[in-house]
């Protein structure tokens, strides 16, 4: 839904622009394509709108689809920035180099993967192991976790989602590289984070996960803890001090060192103005530690 809305917006803006913007004698017309993570798509849109207010001759298009879509698009050379809620896999970097793309990783914000259930669900907290047992299908009824007697409906994103892959690596496979555990095949693979929220609102037995930016009062976010340790809520404080176990960085990937207009955009994202947008969308902005590795 959200993605379609964005496409629509882009088409409308794209249609308006050629007639609306005139080239200024000193300004430089430019077009940036930002693609990837649905987790960051709203924050990215807000940053881009702010950026376009400051730089009216640079047009920035933001689309979602999933981190995998952004990364594939960067490799295929169809976007300038791939936004991602997971690290690029070594295999992807290898493929990128084969296509002549040198991925550069920039950490832009931090996020906690929130686990949500319906408000009528009595469960308030869980360990990583409980989550693993639920999402691999080992536990099939809420009764077994002390909840109501109803079958658990597990909700996930499609395989193109970075959050899907993050969750698989950290929860399903418990961070073990050699694990081959998979999501239970009964898991519903939904097309957007918003669809997960809708289903949890409508379904008492559902459990889903998504980036903090999609948390609202309409669903209950449960506290999560490492096995045998204290549980913490997915909020800014506990993601910042990393005590929330499903904390992760959010990335921008560019082809090589960003230059010109692209550098302007990245610098804006990392500036206090850009970081403010992340905070407003519910993410944890970068603090003093401004990461630019690789």
């Amino acid at each position, binding site marked *: 839904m959200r993605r379609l809305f964005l496409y629509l917006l882009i088409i409308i803006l794209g249609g308006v622009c050629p007639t609306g913007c005139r080239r200024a004698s000193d300004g430089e017309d430019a077009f940036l394509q930002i693609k990837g993570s649905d987790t960051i798509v709203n924050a990215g849109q807000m940053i881009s709108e702010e950026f376009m207010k400051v730089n009216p001759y640079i047009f920035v298009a933001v689309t979602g689809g999933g981190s995998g879509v952004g990364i594939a698009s960067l490799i295929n050379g169809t976007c300038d920035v791939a936004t991602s809620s997971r690290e690029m896999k070594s295999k992807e970097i290898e493929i990128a180099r084969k296509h002549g793309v040198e991925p550069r990783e920039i950490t832009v914000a931090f996020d906690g993967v929130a686990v949500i259930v319906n408000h009528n669900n009595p469960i308030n907290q869980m360990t990583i192991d409980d989550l693993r047992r639920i999402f691999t299908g080992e536990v099939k009824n809420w009764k077994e976790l002390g909840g109501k007697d109803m079958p658990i409906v597990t909700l996930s994103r499609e395989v193109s989602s970075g959050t899907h892959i993050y969750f698989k690596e950290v929860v399903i496979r418990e961070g073990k590289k050699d694990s081959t555990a998979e999501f239970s095949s009964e898991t519903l693979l939904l097309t957007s984070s918003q669809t997960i929220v*809708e289903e949890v609102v409508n379904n008492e037995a559902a459990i889903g996960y998504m980036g903090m930016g999609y948390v609202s009062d309409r669903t209950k976010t449960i506290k999560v803890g490492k096995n045998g340790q204290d549980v913490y809520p997915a909020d800014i404080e506990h993601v910042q001090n990393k005590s929330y176990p499903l904390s992760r960085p959010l990335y921008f990937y560019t082809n090589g060192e960003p230059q010109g207009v692209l550098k302007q955009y990245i610098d804006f994202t990392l500036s206090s103005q850009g970081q403010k947008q992340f905070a407003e969308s519910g993410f944890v902005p970068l603090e003093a530690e401004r990461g630019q590795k690789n």
Partner: protein
Amino acid sequence: MAKKINERIIETAIRISGFAVIAFVFLIFLFLLKDSLSLFRIYPLKGFIAGIRWLPISEPPSFGIIPLFMGSILVTVGAIMLCVPIGVATALFIAEVAPKNLKMILKSLIEILASIPSVVLGFIGIVWLGPFLKNTFHLTTGMCGLTGVCLLAFMALPTIISISEDALISVPRMYKEAAYGLGATRWQALWRVVLPAASSGIIAAAMLGIGRVIGETMVVMMVTGNSPIIPHSILQPLRTLTATIAGEMGETVGGSDHYYALFAVGLVLFVITFMLNFVADISLRKNRK
């Protein structure tokens, strides 16, 4: 003389466009074939056709098409069982029973029905139909095959109604008159004479309806839950061939095994719809004789 040249030009243009269409279909087929055959250089054909697990991004991946194929078949069969009786009954009503004014209104309403975008239907499915079916049938989730079946049946209705109506109208009047002459009631004449006489057209309508349903993407991707399991009932979540391509195509890099696997899924879909259209065409032709 000038007239003749004009005619020549027009004739050639028409002929070229006719051949172009054939060439396009053929080229699409070749394109699909080329990229899907590349899959079988890295992945066994048997594992694709008979595999029961679809795990495209695992290491190593498994591209078993059976769950997707079964998902597509199940929603299609369900949708057709729901919409063919309703569609044919509506067509009978429009062609034989309805007064002229009502007929006009119904026909234009059905055209409007055909023009509702599938995303809109999918949206209705998520926010209204899914929760409604969940509460009515006490399902674990509204994101299941049944929601998809209802919406797909709704989408196939216009096709089925208009083609069956054409078939019913083209039944010679003499048939009906002869039936009345033998003392048949209106119902008997419709049920025993007109309907069987139009049967091949109705089969063609059903076939084209199936083609419409099996190729539909947006609605099923939005409402059926997309779990790659082999569904045992229509009340379970399922994943179709089309939703798989649409959901995963964006994240594949050109030339990867996942990319080729999606082309192979596309080829399967193409072959299915091609055969359906072929059968529909044969029965339509039989109808005209």
